């Protein structure tokens, strides 16, 4: 049986797509690897994972919080987060550390992880826990229902 011209064209297009796909895939993984080696040296703990190399766009913002002394701090003034909803990004297995200082008394609630801590007016509270659940989670002033930060935990 002789394959029709349509079938040949389709197979050719398929082959073309296959080549393009391999090129993209190889390029994608290679490129990602390069970026990650430049952008960050991981904190000591032996939790490095292969998967993280691909996510370079997010690495830009949270860069400061990788340094040991500077814990990211969210400042609440008048019941609102200064500078809008903060974005915190961690990798699974790391220890999540951040601080909230508030000029109002309320309860700080981190969804998903379901951690609640009361804060007094003018006080500050530090969160410290292992990043065990992957995903995006909201930190909010529970009684005012005001979102303060989005915690992103990457695999």
């Amino acid at each position, binding site marked *: 049986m002789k394959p029709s011209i349509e079938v040949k064209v389709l197979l050719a297009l398929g082959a073309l797509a296959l080549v393009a796909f391999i090129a993209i895939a190889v390029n994608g993984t290679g490129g990602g690897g390069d970026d990650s080696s430049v952008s960050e040296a991981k904190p000591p703990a032996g939790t490095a994972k292969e998967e993280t190399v691909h996510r370079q766009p997010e690495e830009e913002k949270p860069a400061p919080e990788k340094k040991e002394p500077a814990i990211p701090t969210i400042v609440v003034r008048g019941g609102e987060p200064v500078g809008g909803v903060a974005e915190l990004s961690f990798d699974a297995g790391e220890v999540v550390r951040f601080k909230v200082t508030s000029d109002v008394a309320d309860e700080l609630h981190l*969804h998903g992880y379901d951690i609640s801590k009361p804060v007094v007016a003018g006080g500050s509270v530090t969160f410290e826990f292992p990043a065990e659940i992957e995903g995006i989670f909201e930190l909010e002033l529970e009684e005012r229902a005001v979102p303060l930060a989005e915690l992103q935990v990457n695999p």
Partner: protein
Amino acid sequence: MTFFSSLPLAHALASRQDLPIPAWLFAWAASIVLIVSFFALAIAWRTPRFDRDHWRALKGRGWGLLRSVGAQALFGAIGVALLGAGIYAGLRGTEAPDRNLALTLFFVTVWLGFPALSVVLGDVFRPFNPWRAVGRAFGAFFRAVAGQEPAHLRYPEWLGRWPAAVGLVAFVWLEIVYGTSGGVAVGLDPHTAAVAACIYSGYTLAMMAVFGVEKWCARGETFSVYFGMFAELGIFEVRKGKLGRRRPFAAATTWAHTPGSLALVVASIGTTSFDGAAEGVLKEPIESVFGWMRDGGIDPTASLRLTNTLFMLLCIGAIAAIYLLGVRGMRSVGKAPSFSVLRMGFAHTLIPIAFAYLFAHYFSLFVFLEQAQVGYLLSDPLGTGTTDLFGTASWGVDYTVLTANAIWYVQVGALVVGHVTGLMLAHDRAIVFWGDYRLATRSQYWMLAVMVAFTCFGLYLLSVSNQ
């Protein structure tokens, strides 16, 4: 300044949001879609396979028992009881959306659960449909008292499934657009959901009285028609009072011959797209239009609702336009049937795409919230904190059951499978319409373009959501 915390309702219910699909996975998935498509067309069959659905009645006593009056009354009673429980919880229970049975029951368990069951098993909603059960009970009562069939108006056939398509948009609108307060999306509250359920019940029972229970279920009752759309792909069907098995997908081929069917499936894809896009691609346009309206002196709440409504309708319009463009293209192939024949003839090929969109967007939400559904919501439906009907009130939601990777692969897998199924259905129809295999294949370059567009758009939405 952020106006939107996240997908309002999903966000109010589940504490964990999906991470966007990483760029490398997006590239892989899109490439696989292209490759699979071309090879599928090259090796595809040359005679129609889904033209007849080979329905056969199931033999055996158990199947007959399922269709008995007692069983039907029981299923109907379960449906009515659940609807009643949802409404009661919404009206009397807590206003905390995640602690009240109403929202999770209506918008997650039923709204997402039935499409998933239907797509495999067929129309499983029908026996549990609470309004159908009430309508049939009322009909039986009428016949017993009056000694004759209730008289109904003839349903205007040109209206087709349009009432259901409008109902679908209204339902999703209520879910993701309506719940705003002072220009901030806060999500729907249980009380409003319960009131809406009461209004819808009244409307449905009235329409059933006017046009007849079965007629309204087949054409106008939003949930029957919407779940029934997915059920067209499933394998069980009741015909002439007998439960039987049929070939999967085959029943769907004539589904779209009723007016309004295309609108229904397009609305399904469009509204899901809007839900995904509102947080990603469309976030900035929505914020600017909202700001522009609010600065123009319109009340903030109205501005936000208006903006979101506008963009939701735009999404539906865009999906329709892509599909119609594909149909237009097919029309240009030699010996093509008319535009309207093609438009209705291929609409059912979008059902798998619609299901894939639903599955990809709400899979994790469903897995998390069903834990709440069978746990604390079952035992403490009002969220009072003092009730414990079945001893499960203290159960929580384990958000670690799915890793981010698991969610990504399920999402991509759903879109690819939906894509291939859609292509398969379209190819099969093309052979029927053109008769000639070569012309049919040529016409399918257009449908292929449409499907690739939908699938890659779906992947794209997942890759930028929540950022």
